[in-house]
């Protein structure tokens, strides 16, 4: 047994498979610039399945572990189908992309309202006023209907990535 206690976040009240994912507009950050984009338009443009990946702020080891693993699993080769959401500013996200030579794109949501609308927001103890997303994954079809989801219930908690790819239909 590890000599520490994992914080239990408990179950989240998140959109379930079959339900429509909440739509939102936020700056979408690429390795070159950021501009306001709307999720439903992005999904429509891609004409198919899109994976939304929520992580804690870039700079945290939690975000780094997740995005390193996704790169390791070549999710970045599917980058046009994968989009991150985090509570970092556009500047913070862009620095993270540069530091990790990453080609993923992220919605920047410092107010964390997007995570709240997905029922997966988490207020940080000791960082008053800062809320960030839990680690969470949603597979969306072309109409933004949720097809598969995984949401952390502990903090920290990471998915079994083989099972996750199965759940999200990436196998």
């Amino acid at each position, binding site marked *: 047994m590890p000599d520490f206690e994992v914080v239990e976040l408990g179950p989240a009240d998140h959109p379930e498979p079959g339900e429509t994912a909440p739509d939102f507009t936020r*700056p979408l950050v690429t390795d*070159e*610039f*950021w*501009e*306001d984009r709307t999720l439903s*338009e992005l999904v*429509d*443009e891609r*004409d198919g399945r899109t994976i939304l990946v929520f992580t804690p702020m870039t700079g945290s080891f939690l975000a780094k572990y997740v995005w390193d693993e996704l790169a390791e699993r070549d999710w970045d080769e599917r980058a046009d189908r994968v989009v991150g959401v985090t509570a970092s500013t*556009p*500047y913070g996200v*862009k620095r993270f992309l540069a530091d990790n030579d990453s080609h993923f794109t992220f919605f920047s949501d410092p107010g964390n309202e997007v995570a709240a609308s997905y029922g997966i927001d988490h207020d940080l103890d000791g960082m008053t006023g800062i809320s960030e997303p839990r680690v969470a994954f949603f597979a969306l079809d072309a109409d933004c209907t949720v097809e598969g989801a995984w949401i952390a219930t502990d903090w920290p908690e990471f998915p079994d990535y083989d099972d996750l790819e199965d759940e999200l239909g990436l196998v």
Partner: protein
Amino acid sequence: MSETAEPPITFYRLQGCPYCERVTRLLNEYDLSYRSRFVEPMHSERNVVKRVAGVRTVPVVVDENTGVTMAESANIVDYLESTYGEGDRPDAAAASAGGDD
């Protein structure tokens, strides 16, 4: 399939840059639809602007209505006024004297 058309004007800008804000004011004054692409303060991190406009300075405006790509705020202001303005200010003011905009 997309429900909303892409805005014809793309505006490369830097947060808080007064030269960019000058262009913002005019775009709004002429009620032009545009999308903002924010870049970073360091010129070395503005490859996209270099690629699009051949320079690393902002503001840059790309107008698909006319095929014009333009840098330098003074040039952009002249361009927007001559393309979308209603002549010089006094005339424009007189012409709209009875209107509500």
